[in-house]
């Protein structure tokens, strides 16, 4: 059965999401698709520009996570220089990346997913939102805001500019950290840690209510990919790639990120503009893998900080091997907030953190530059090619939402199969379809917020491709 699925012009311009659910002859869900468009115009835009503009340009592809792209872009430029940047610069970038992770995870948990998690999936849709949450748990909204503020303050203290800091530069950072700013950042971290610990306890106390969701929310075997440090600990800035399978076997370890293309290939499907990366050795689509908080906790040996490791131990008791249900992304996210606070503290107490030597000066020594980091949503790859004069010839980006594309679609199909059974769309089942997407917390490339705020559509199709029902959300 072939069907033409219309993607309207506005969707082509910018990624607002659409979910289409297809029924079989018996009225059961056959398949579900999550259509996200990725804005790709910047490859062309960047062509012929000097390489050092890339971090700032890339930072502007996202209004919510500029730091993730800034840092991956700067790392790709370091690789064009083919130099080791000073240790202090690495650690300062690391702090900034963790601050962004804290901020981003707080938005996801407190503001997007808390209504599902605290009020229940079947709560009245009129009140199943942040305002409903605040009525019952007034403190929660403020704590979410506090975590975001702390993250933002750290980024500002480091970069001294609110939007799109140009502090991170090819070769390092352009100004050392002052003692005053270091102390200020340190003063906020205990509060951040305390909020995260308290919220995690609260979350764990309620998790039993979600057994049906845990069972069906993207609960299937897949590979997991992410960065680790040389000791197998959690590492978001500068690590080696590790892939584990669904039984917990390490199938790729300590793999140089500069050779990512030997591990990953990308497939295309006609119904979406977003590509489907997969693990080459296993082929498409068997080589599907997950990235992001859940994947990171599944691949590491330890976190490497005290409280996060205690929590990781408990997290690991969920199942024998890797935790397979995508519902647990939420849990993993909260552990990562704790880790971020602890790790930032470690880094800032390092005796070299105030060193004035924070930048390596060099010219491009390589025509090919790759920067790989762990962004809040998972592994982020920036890959640039330049000509002999340092002008950009080619750009390739694989963002976390891209890596997760295959598993996200699989997960949506699983949820739809379990909760959607009829020829019209109902709130409770629809919310579960959305809730699984929220668990992954994908980036819907809302770099133009005006278009990004367009309503999301959910469409239900008959086996003949007839549109049975449509809901506009938002």
């Amino acid at each position: 059965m072939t069907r033409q699925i219309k993607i309207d012009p506005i969707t082509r311009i910018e990624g607002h999401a659409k979910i289409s659910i297809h029924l079989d002859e018996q009225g059961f869900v056959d398949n579900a698709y999550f259509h996200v468009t990725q804005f790709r115009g910047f490859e062309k835009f960047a062509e012929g520009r000097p390489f050092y503009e890339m971090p700032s340009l890339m930072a502007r592809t996202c209004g919510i996570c500029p730091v993730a792209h800034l840092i991956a872009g700067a790392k790709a430029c370091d690789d064009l220089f083919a130099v080791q940047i000073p240790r202090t610069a690495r650690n300062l970038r690391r702090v900034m990346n963790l601050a962004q992770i804290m901020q981003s995870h707080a938005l996801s948990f407190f503001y997007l997913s808390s209504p599902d998690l605290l009020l229940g999936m079947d709560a009245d849709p009129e009140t199943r939102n942040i305002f409903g949450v605040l009525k019952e748990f007034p403190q929660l909204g403020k704590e979410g805001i506090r975590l975001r503020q702390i993250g933002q303050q750290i980024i500002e203290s480091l970069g001294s500019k609110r939007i799109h800091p140009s502090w991170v530069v090819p070769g390092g950072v352009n100004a050392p950290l002052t003692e005053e700013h270091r102390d200020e950042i340190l003063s906020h971290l205990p509060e951040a840690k305390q909020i995260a610990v308290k919220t995690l306890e609260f979350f764990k106390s309620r998790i039993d209510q979600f057994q049906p969701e845990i069972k069906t929310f993207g609960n299937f075997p897949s590979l997991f990919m992410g960065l680790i440090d040389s000791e197998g600990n959690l590492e978001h800035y500068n690590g080696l790639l590790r892939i584990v399978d669904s039984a917990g076997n390490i199938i790729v370890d300590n793999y140089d990120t500069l050779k990512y293309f030997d591990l990953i290939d990308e497939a295309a499907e006609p119904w979406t503009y977003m590509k489907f990366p997969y693990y080459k050795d296993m082929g498409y689509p068997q080589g599907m893998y997950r990235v992001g908080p859940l994947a990171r906790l599944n691949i590491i040996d330890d976190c490497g900080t005290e409280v996060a490791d205690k929590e990781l131990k408990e997290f690991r008791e969920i199942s024998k091997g890797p935790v397979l249900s995508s519902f647990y992304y939420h849990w993993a996210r909260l552990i990562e907030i704790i880790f971020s606070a602890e790790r930032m503290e470690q880094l800032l107490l390092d005796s070299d953190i105030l060193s004035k030597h924070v930048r390596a000066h060099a010219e491009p020594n390589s025509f090919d530059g790759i920067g790989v980091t762990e962004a809040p949503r998972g592994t982020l790859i920036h890959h640039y090619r330049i000509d002999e004069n340092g002008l950009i010839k080619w750009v390739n980006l694989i963002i976390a939402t891209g890596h997760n594309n295959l598993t996200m679609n699989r997960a949506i199909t699983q949820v739809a199969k379990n909760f959607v059974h009829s020829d019209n769309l109902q709130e409770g089942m629809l919310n579960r379809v959305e809730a699984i997407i929220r668990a992954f917390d994908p980036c819907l490339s809302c770099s133009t917020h005006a278009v990004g705020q367009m309503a999301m559509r959910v469409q239900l199709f008959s086996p003949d491709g007839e549109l049975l029902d449509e809901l506009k959300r938002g």
Partner: protein
Amino acid sequence: MPKTLIIGYGNSLRRDDGLGIAAAERLMEIFAEQDGIEVVAATQLTPELADKIKNFTEVVFIDCSVEGEPGEIAMNEISARPDIIPRLEHSISPAYIINLTKKLYNTNPHAIVFSLTGKEFGLGESLSEKVSNQLGNLIEGIRKYIEGLYQ
């Protein structure tokens, strides 16, 4: 004496989407000397803005719109209820952030949205002709509105 917060937002590298930022920058200069008026520029509205908004009695949002004809200027009161509650996206609407502020901090700021309908959203810093021609009028409209608050 009202205390006014002006928030212009958008992505200045996505052509017309950046008009909120352009307007905010201009208004920063216009109201630089005036006590009780603060102007901020942001790429997106995020929940922590509530913590700032709570200190003001009047809030003016400036945004690029995709509704209506390019170049159209609109001024809308913010509804008592949040219109759009984001479910998946990481950006929020003026009504959401104002209602959030009210709930969280028990304040009651009055808020209004000035919007200008955009046309071009490709990469670049230049505004489209229609939007560019109207930006001065938008700024003038906001200036008059704010001066009205202080009379």
